[in-house]
C-alpha cells in the first residue's frame, strides 16, 4: 500500500500545498510508503530560492530537501507543467524526479489524495 499526495495549487496564496506536505510527512513518520506529485501551478512550490519573508510566510524549500531523510519515497513533478512555468533542471530544488505521464504515476500507488 502506498499513497500519492498531489499538490496542484500554487504556493503562498492558499494553504493546501503546506497541508499536503504535512500529510506526506505524517505518512512517512508512521513508516507508510508515501510520495508527492506536483502538477499544474503546484510545480511552483519546487522553484529554488523562494524568499517569502516579505509576505510573512516561511519557505518550504528546507522541508522539501529533508523529505528523503524523513522517509518520503519520491518527489515527482509533472514535466509539461514544469515546461509551462519555465522550470528547467537548474531552477528546481534538488531531489525532484520528472514524470511524463500522470496516469502511470497514479497507477503506481494504491491511494491517491489531495489536501483540499
Amino acid at each position, binding site marked *: 500500500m502506498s499513497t500519492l499526495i498531489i499538490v496542484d495549487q500554487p504556493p503562498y496564496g492558499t494553504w493546501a500545498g503546506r497541508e499536503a506536505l504535512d500529510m506526506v510527512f505524517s505518512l512517512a513518520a508512521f513508516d507508510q510508503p508515501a510520495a508527492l506529485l506536483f502538477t499544474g501551478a503546484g510545480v511552483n512550490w519546487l522553484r529554488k530560492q523562494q524568499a517569502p519573508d516579505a509576505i510573512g510566510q516561511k519557505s518550504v524549500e528546507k522541508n522539501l530537501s529533508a523529505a528523503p531523510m524523513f522517509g518520503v519515497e519520491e518527489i515527482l513533478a509533472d514535466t509539461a507543467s514544469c515546461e509551462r512555468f519555465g522550470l528547467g533542471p537548474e531552477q528546481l530544488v534538488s531531489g525532484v*524526479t520528472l514524470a511524463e505521464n*500522470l*496516469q502511470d504515476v*497514479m*497507477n503506481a500507488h494504491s491511494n491517491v489524495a*489531495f489536501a483540499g
Partner: protein
Amino acid sequence: MTSTQPANPTLHILNKPPGHPRFETCLQAIQDCDQLVLTENAVLALADRSVTLPAACKAMKADVDARALNEQTRTGTIDYAELVRLTAKHSRIISW
C-alpha cells in the same frame, strides 16, 4: 517509477466546476476502465457545451436537481445509495 500493474480500475469523484484546473486534470487522468461520478459543482458539465465527458460517467441526482439540470441527458444520474455501491466496488477511489 514505472506502471507495473495494468490499469487498476478507479472511481473518480469530481466536484470542481468545468473550467477549474482540477476539472481538466481529472478528465485527462481517466482511463478507459475507470468510472467517473460528477458531484456538486461538477454536474454543471452536463450543460457545458465546451466539455466532452467520458462514456462511464454518472452525475449525482441531488446535485443535478438542485441546479435544475434534470433535462440534460448527457449522463445518467445516481443517488447516494448507488454512490456507496460504487465506492464498495472500487478499491481505488480519487476525490478530485
